[in-house]
């Protein structure tokens, strides 16, 4: 579903159209869930996705439709993930949950059979900013411009983060033929 259609659904939902609200959620929930799995933790992605929609639908009144609704929603998801990480860092960690370190993705409690463990580990090992830029542009499919809007940073920052994420992934996944430059 394209951005214009998703934005139209959000505007109809803002006017109280519950069917449109349902379609808006259905059209975007997979991407929201997936983004949260990468930004926070796959084990809490569902809970955080629900929180994202609660915030989004609660503040639909203030959405004016001049930014793509998908980017608007993903920026809320991003903030929900950041809030979650902040909460988790502040609070003593439950025994079952791994302590937050520089690899917030950790081990995936929910197995993703289709996404190879190697790729998932390599993504999880990325610097958080690079991972975010890579996930938004490559897995969610946002343009650099929309990703910059979601992250509230300049387009050039997205551009260099994506390139560095790619370089890190090339190193981590040890693609055959990867050539190291000395220098």
């Amino acid at each position: 579903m394209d951005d214009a259609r998703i934005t139209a659904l959000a505007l109809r939902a803002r006017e109280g159209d519950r069917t449109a609200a349902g379609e808006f959620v259905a059209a975007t929930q997979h991407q929201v869930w997936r983004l949260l799995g990468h930004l926070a933790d796959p084990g809490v992605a569902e809970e955080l996705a629900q929180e994202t929609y609660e915030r989004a639908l609660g503040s639909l009144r203030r959405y004016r439709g001049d930014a793509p609704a998908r980017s608007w929603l993903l920026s809320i998801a991003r903030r929900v993930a950041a809030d979650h990480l902040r909460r988790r860092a502040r609070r003593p960690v439950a025994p079952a949950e791994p302590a937050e370190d520089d690899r917030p993705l950790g081990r995936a409690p929910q197995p993703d059979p289709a996404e190879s463990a190697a790729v998932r580990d390599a993504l999880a090992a990325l610097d958080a900013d690079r991972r975010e830029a890579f996930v938004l542009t490559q897995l969610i499919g946002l343009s650099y411009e929309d990703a910059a809007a979601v992250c509230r940073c300049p387009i050039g920052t997205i551009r260099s983060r994506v390139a560095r994420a790619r370089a890190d992934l090339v190193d981590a996944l040890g693609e055959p033929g990867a050539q190291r430059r000395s220098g």
Partner: protein
Amino acid sequence: MTGNSGRPRGDQQGMAGSSDCDVCREAVSAALDGEAGAAESARVDAHLAGCAACRAWRRDAEAVTRRARTGVVVGGPDLVDRVVGAAPGLRARWWGVTARAGLAAAGLAQAVLGLVGLLGAATHAGHGDDPLVLLGAGMAHAAHESAAWNLALGVAFVAGAIWSRHLAGLMPVLGAFIAVLAVLSGVDLVAGRVEPARVAAHLVLVAGFLLGLAVVRTTPRPGAGPSPGARWRSRPTEHGAAPEGLRAAAPTGWERESDVA
């Protein structure tokens, strides 16, 4: 690759030296995403023609991107019923529609009261001279004024129900009018200067005022909060303009917290 060490590279225009590989690779990455400009692509091609390492890197980068993308996660929770059912904004919106309909009905009732008062004043005025003149107005004229006010308030309610975004500005006037009227009605009622039926008619005003408050609370306000679109339009456009400017630009004014709670 060793390009993440952050060595300065912003001043290289051509892509001749080994550190230009970093510049090239960022442009290659952008090109893979269809985000590189034509002039930049030409410079990249020129560099790639003479740099086997970057040609290999492009192949690898393409491959890892494909691997990451094709690992499509199927499934995920279905949140539609959970979140749409609980959304307060949508419930509030439904109440808003109900409140607007009620406000329109109160407005019509109030307008009818005003018209009835006008007709009553007209028939009363036909009976000849006013026995009482107060502050320069006869009873008939006072009744005309009262009827005009009632009619105007009815029209205001109906208009507020239709153009609800302008209703908020009306509420202080209505509130003051109703507060003063309530006090005076109470005093007059105790003193026996007014019939209870006429005071009861004022309840339509109170109902309209409360419904108006409900409409104001549930109406999307275009002026509330900063517009996300303002940020959208003011975004810096260094994309394509300065492909070699790799360092993050200084944070700009639009990078503030969103209006979303």
